[in-house]
């Protein structure tokens, strides 16, 4: 059995509010998400988020998060005690260098486990032709929901800007040895 399987992939052919993959099988050990995002924000960056099972609700899907953000020579750390989404990473905005897209990935461990909370690790890079306006982030989160296996993943822009053509989200399933 392959250890890494493509479950879903979308690359946008037109500007769209978000990318959602539904119907994800629960038969894998972990999920690996890879995204590449540029949005319509009139700035060099926008703020992305990821939530699960099409539910933007912090009561049903509480998600705590800690993150590091480096922008140029500035380093900041922050935590979100409770939210509903994997926040804290940037994407390329529409005034960043032409054809530049952010590159991020997140591991969602034990995503189908309904007995325990699900840990998440992510990293993300926003390339740009500016030493002060390029950024890189890393973070760790914990999805507090234990009632539902993750069957859907959505990536979106926090301020509602549309994701631009070429933005993509791929979901992989990871298997260990049986």
């Amino acid at each position: 059995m392959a250890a890494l399987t493509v479950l879903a992939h979308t690359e946008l052919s037109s500007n769209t509010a978000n990318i959602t993959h539904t119907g994800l099988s629960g038969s894998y050990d972990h999920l690996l998400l890879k995204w590449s995002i540029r949005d319509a924000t009139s700035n060099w960056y926008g703020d992305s988020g990821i939530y699960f099972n099409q539910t933007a609700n912090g009561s049903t899907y509480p998600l705590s998060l800690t993150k590091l953000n480096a922008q140029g020579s500035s380093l900041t750390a922050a935590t979100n005690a409770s939210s509903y989404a994997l926040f804290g990473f940037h994407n390329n905005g529409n005034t960043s260098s032409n054809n530049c897209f952010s590159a991020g990935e997140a591991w969602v461990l034990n995503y189908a486990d309904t007995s325990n909370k699900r840990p998440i690790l992510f990293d993300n890079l926003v390339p740009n032709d500016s030493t002060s306006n390029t950024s890189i982030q890393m973070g760790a989160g914990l999805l507090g929901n234990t009632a539902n296996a993750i069957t859907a993943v959505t990536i979106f822009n926090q301020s509602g800007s549309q994701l631009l053509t070429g933005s993509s989200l791929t979901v992989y399933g990871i298997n260990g040895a049986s």
Partner: protein
Amino acid sequence: MAAIEAIKTTRLESWVSSITLSSIPSSYEHLELRVSAAGNRASYASDIAYLRFNSSTTSYTDQAMLGSAPNSEICFAQSSRSRMDLYRLGTIGVGKRIPYGALIIQIRDYANTSKNTTVVAFGGTSAVDNTSNDRQVSVCGGAWHQTTAISSIEFGDVNGTYLMTGSVVSLYGIRSS
């Protein structure tokens, strides 16, 4: 069809100035490099690796780095270069044994002719034989400001002149369907 496939592995049996992986097929969504390598930079216990795509010495965007150096946090962005600089590469410069550095490098959208190629690397080295505390870990990367498909990758040492015997560079293709 496997989502990840091995394309090529190069293991050095002698010193070389750089490693070039050529004739890379464009049939994948992304590429990944897994590297264990050291250079011959003198007097330091770590160095910087570089990538060049399609032999190009232009169009690399400014590059971001977040990591440790060595007992404190550090981050910076450096001006665009003639190559993609990535942290860390081991070096024979200090110590009794070669402390190979480790790098896992994502090369995203390398064959997409509508998007620049974005590179994200997670790397580090620990110089076990020296007392300089030159032990570092980082996440870093940038973009190649071209939409030409990448068919060759050169891997080398920024401050040294050779990659050392025992260095290993493995290239994988990552599919999206």
